[in-house]
């Protein structure tokens, strides 16, 4: 078995007991990246030299008997939405081409402290806006299971990197499903922690009341390992929770006897692919067989989740992305007027013209669409009808979850209505693309936790994902429920045949 075939948990143990070195482990994953990245495009930048130097340093420390961190020597991929001082941070945008942040994200700081080896930055939808990874300014990502299909998004690069064995662990971020949906479409495991569980400092802001960083890996056990490192309070993020971090691996092996899982009948509407429905139902049956009980619950306002999300997230984005002004960092217009000025010639001042033209050149179409939508929703005369209205519906959506969790411990269901769709299939229809977030946005609007893991394959060989949602800070239970399923099944161990072995 080659090193890239082994789980993160297994590799950490092998590194610890001296069976393998970090240099050997890092070289294996770098070789795999070199072989497959030209096809998959999961990485935007690879930190080869830096990673090997770090690996050698950790091997030397370990050999000298010095204390090393819990992930010592293990390669980890980081979504290119987190600030790294030693590697580019582009958010897959031309706006941040070549940008080197002056500080590390708190999550990156924690990874370095744990002695993880940062092998590179993964591709994504520009500024994390999208559900297919087709919005990257540096090229789309291909789904390792079928190279003509999308990996999902916006953490499509991180999901594809795990599915293609280019890294044992990856960091993603999830604003409306951006960890769970690509995890589902790529046949891997991804956790969106409770809002505030992981510090957002140094995460390039998209929608500040919804964004959350989380782990992506092959299995729930591997996700526990990564969450253990990145979770915790950060005085530099006033929304990070000052709550003790539990031991996420301690209870993984506890059986599920007596666990109450909710099933929402409305999840099984006409838009749900029959093969997906079949695998999701079979997963409920597997949980019953494992000692859990299934209960029908209702989330009466769930149908309003997507429109609520597409008012709140763009509104916050239009404000967050105001920082890209061509003055402090990022792309700046060179002063030459474009041939097609759209009749927009009446700027208030040369400064405003510089802002407008720098941003027009730096942002891609989906980012512009969301800035426009958010600006519109926040503008005078529309604020109450759109933004304030969405905030009221958000409270109703959150209350639905609070009510449901009075009766059940977790809520199960599909992650996505269909398996991975063809590249280009939805790019001409923004609303169709937004609807891929149907099953995932509620988690973010309510600020709770959710995990996605593989629960089967279609006849055509595409992975199908299952989602569990749990109350705030239920990560230990979410991980245990996924882990127990993975002890009884081997979907998460299947490897793609679409790439050279």
């Amino acid at each position, binding site marked *: 078995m080659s090193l890239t075939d082994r789980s993160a948990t297994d590799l950490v143990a092998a590194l610890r007991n001296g069976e393998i070195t970090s240099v050997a482990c890092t070289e294996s994953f770098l070789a795999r990246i070199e072989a497959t990245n030209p096809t998959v495009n999961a990485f935007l930048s690879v930190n080869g030299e830096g990673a090997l130097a770090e690996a050698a340093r950790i091997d030397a420390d370990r050999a000298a008997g010095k204390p090393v961190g819990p992930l010592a020597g293990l390669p980890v991929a980081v979504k290119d939405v987190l600030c790294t001082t030693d590697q580019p941070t582009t958010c897959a945008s031309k706006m941040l081409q070549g*940008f080197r942040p*002056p500080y590390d994200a708190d999550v990156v700081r924690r990874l370095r402290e744990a002695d993880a080896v940062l092998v590179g930055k993964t591709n994504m939808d520009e500024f994390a806006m999208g559900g297919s990874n087709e919005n990257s300014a540096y090229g789309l990502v291909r789904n390792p299971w079928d190279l003509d299909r999308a990996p999902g998004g916006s953490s499509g690069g991180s999901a594809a990197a795990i599915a293609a064995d280019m890294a044992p662990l990856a960091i993603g971020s999830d604003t409306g499903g951006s960890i769970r949906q690509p995890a589902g479409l790529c046949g891997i495991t991804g956790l969106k922690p409770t*809002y*505030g569980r992981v510090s957002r400092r140094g995460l390039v802001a998209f929608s500040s*009341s919804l964004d959350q960083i989380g782990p992506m890996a092959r299995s729930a056990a591997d996700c526990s390992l990564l969450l253990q490192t990145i979770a915790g309070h950060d005085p530099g993020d*006033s*929304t990070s929770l000052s709550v003790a971090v539990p031991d996420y691996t301690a209870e993984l092996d506890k059986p599920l006897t007596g666990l109450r899982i909710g099933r929402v009948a409305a999840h099984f509407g006409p838009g749900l692919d029959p093969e997906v429905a079949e695998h999701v139902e079979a997963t409920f049956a597997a949980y019953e067989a494992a000692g859990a009980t299934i209960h029908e619950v209702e989330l009466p306002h769930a149908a309003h989740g997507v*429109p*609520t999300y597409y008012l709140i997230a763009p509104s916050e984005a*239009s404000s967050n992305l*105001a920082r890209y002004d061509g*003055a*402090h*960092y*990022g*792309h*700046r*217009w*060179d*002063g030459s007027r*474009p041939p*097609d*000025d*759209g009749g*927009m010639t009446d700027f208030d*001042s*040369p*400064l*405003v*013209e*510089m802002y*407008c*033209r720098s*941003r*027009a050149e730096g*942002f891609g179409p989906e980012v*512009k*669409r969301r*800035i*426009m*939508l958010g*600006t*519109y929703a926040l*503008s005078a005369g*529309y604020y*109450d009808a*759109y933004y304030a*209205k*969405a*905030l*009221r*519906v958000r*409270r*109703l959506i959150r209350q639905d979850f609070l009510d449901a969790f009075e009766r059940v411990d977790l809520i199960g269901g599909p992650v996505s209505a269909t398996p991975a769709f063809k590249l280009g299939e939805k790019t001409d229809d*923004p*609303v169709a693309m*937004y609807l891929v977030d149907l099953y995932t946005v509620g988690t973010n*609007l*309510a600020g*709770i936790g959710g995990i996605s893991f593989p629960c089967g394959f279609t006849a055509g060989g595409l992975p199908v994902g299952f989602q569990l949602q749990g109350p705030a800070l239920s990560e230990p239970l979410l991980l245990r429920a996924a882990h127990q399923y993975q002890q009884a099944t081997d979907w998460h161990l299947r490897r793609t045949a679409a790439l050279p072995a």
Partner: protein
Amino acid sequence: MPADSGPEPTLTPGDVKKVALLGRLALSGAELKSLTAELSQIVGFVSQLAAVDTEAVEPLAHPLDAQNVFREDEPAASLPTSEALRSAPRQDGECFLVPAVLGDSGSA
């Protein structure tokens, strides 16, 4: 506003131009045209929220219970000027350089 009547969702190119200036985006003619259609479609889609009864429901701006977070007011190191200016497209070693804020003189 009655619960069943949403705002008029159709945007004109003039509306889109106004929003673009507010959002600090210089749109091309082609973008203006496509965004007028797309935003009308998206605004139409999100307008379905008008039908939700939110009478007596308070807005929820944040998923956590609203709370002030205080810390001691202690001096700490901040980013050195050189580091803060390092990524600026134009700077003079002390300040960010930008075109004229008022009037139409100066260049980008």
